[in-house]
């Protein structure tokens, strides 16, 4: 039981993103079928499908960040001697923290300015969609802090791998 909870927690972004992409796929399929067999499209599918897609992309990006799946080029850094390498790694972690933190900050400003704007079809608050960006970058900011602390604690190793 404990193990299962841990598994769910460590993969919760992937679970959310997967659910969102399943809804997206199902809605678009459904719309094609209703258009051909019932001769009428469902007017809101496109908007909801796109909204779910946006959520899936941004939460998925956070998942990829957590698993360090975004590819970077570490060839030059790996050529450096261990101490320099550690220093660069920490600086890079810090820069990433700044970037993620800053995007989170402007996301808050953006949503506070735009949440009253309704979406074109359903007329619900656009914040339902744009908050995916806030959630995603808030998560990556937290992971950036975690990586920064982890890399500071790690002893300088490697060099020419």
């Amino acid at each position, binding site marked *: 039981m404990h193990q299962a909870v841990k598994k769910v927690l460590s993969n919760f972004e992937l679970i959310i993103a997967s659910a969102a992409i399943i809804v997206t796929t199902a809605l678009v399929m459904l719309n094609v079928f209703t258009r051909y067999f019932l001769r009428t499209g469902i007017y809101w599918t496109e908007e909801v499908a796109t909204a779910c897609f946006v959520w899936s992309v941004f939460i998925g*990006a956070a998942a990829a960040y957590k698993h360090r799946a975004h*590819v*970077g080029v570490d060839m030059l850094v790996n050529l450096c001697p261990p101490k320099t390498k550690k220093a660069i790694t920490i600086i890079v972690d810090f820069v990433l923290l700044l970037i993620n933190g800053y995007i989170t900050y402007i*996301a808050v400003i953006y949503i506070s300015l735009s949440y009253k704007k309704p979406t074109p079809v359903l007329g619900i608050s656009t914040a339902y969609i*744009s908050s995916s960006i806030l959630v995603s970058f808030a998560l990556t900011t937290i992971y950036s802090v975690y990586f920064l602390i982890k890399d500071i604690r790690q002893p300088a190793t490697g060099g020419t791998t």
Partner: protein
Amino acid sequence: MIAYLPIILVFILYFSSIPIAYALFGSSLFYFAVIDTSSPVDLILQKFVTSTQSFPLLAIPFFVMAGSIMNYAGISKKLMQFADVLTGHMAGGMAQVNVLLSLLMGGVSGSANADAAMQSKMLVPEMEKRGYDRAFSTAITAASSAVTPVIPPGINLIIYALIANASVGRMFAAGYVPGLIMTISLMVTVSIISKRRGYQPVRETRAGGKEVFHQLRESIWALLFPFGIIAGLRIGMFTPSEAGAIAVLYCIIVGKFIYKELGKEHIIPVLRETIFGTSGVVLIIVSASVFGYYLNWERIPQAMASGLLTITQNKYLMLMIINVLFLVMGMFLEGGAAMIILAPLLVPVVTQLGVDVIHFGLICIVNIMIGGLTPPFGSMMFTCCSITRCSLQDFVKEVIPFIVALLISLILVTYIPIITLIVPNLLYGVA
């Protein structure tokens, strides 16, 4: 000069191991937070919203998912047997199968790296067992995977169509002949090398008609797939994103009820591949759009366009310059990213000189695929070498003839527009 600082910053961040999307975010945010603060910050975030909230973009996860499902449905084995009956009797049979399989896989999967990984695991050990050099096997696997994304429904074809405001259907149709030319040039190269080194055919004689027909029937569901999509788009049955969703459904049905290999255990890996594959690409699109906001703010695209146009007004010379630019960028950047960043800047320049937008798209895509094979940062090179444990030096030595073959294909695609345009023009009429 300070206006160009973010561009330099992108390079610094990128080469200190920051992923390209974050390097682009970082330097554009640096610009708007430090250099020029006159633009309200929420306008930058607006770019995050507008660049993702687009229905056509949904085609990306759908086709990634469809390709992934097809893979788990055991389609690659079927297609390999089909490739084997067609080319197994040639000199260097296994290597020819390797090339042809990439072409066939192109019709179901749109990603070069996925194809490179799959074939490195499936074919390279088998080739080594039959006496092929490991570096040669790895090199041909990587080189042939360059064909996969050129064949519809390649993800890069979709992305380019979205960036350049071109028709996805036309882009799909345009990929066939260039993909075939790349395949043929690789097969000829394989044949020459194999004869010299004495790499044996897999089978003694050409497969009989009966056997070919049997394998054709086995893999027909995968082979028909891209044609169905193009036909559906052409007659206006569905939009490109809807085509993607239908493709997913098709692959599930074929995998579950015809090939009977797809099971519940594949749901999680398929979703994981879809999420990671999509969010990575879309994040790059978002970051390029934020970076483009900075570029446009400083009117850099205009400056670059007029700069390029003062060098030459000659269409052929311009394409040559752009090809070199792309090849260099492709050496350092993952292919998709290079295209997402450069295409919006270059499309206005070339269209002004009378180059067709679709034609230019194929030039870009063939080009960045070659970049994926070269050191120092070629992505297919790394994928294959890390799986087969081939050293980079050996790989580079063996891949050179294949790169030459692909460069010849690139020159043909660049300077003979009809290669690209014949199929779209036949299907859709002359643009």
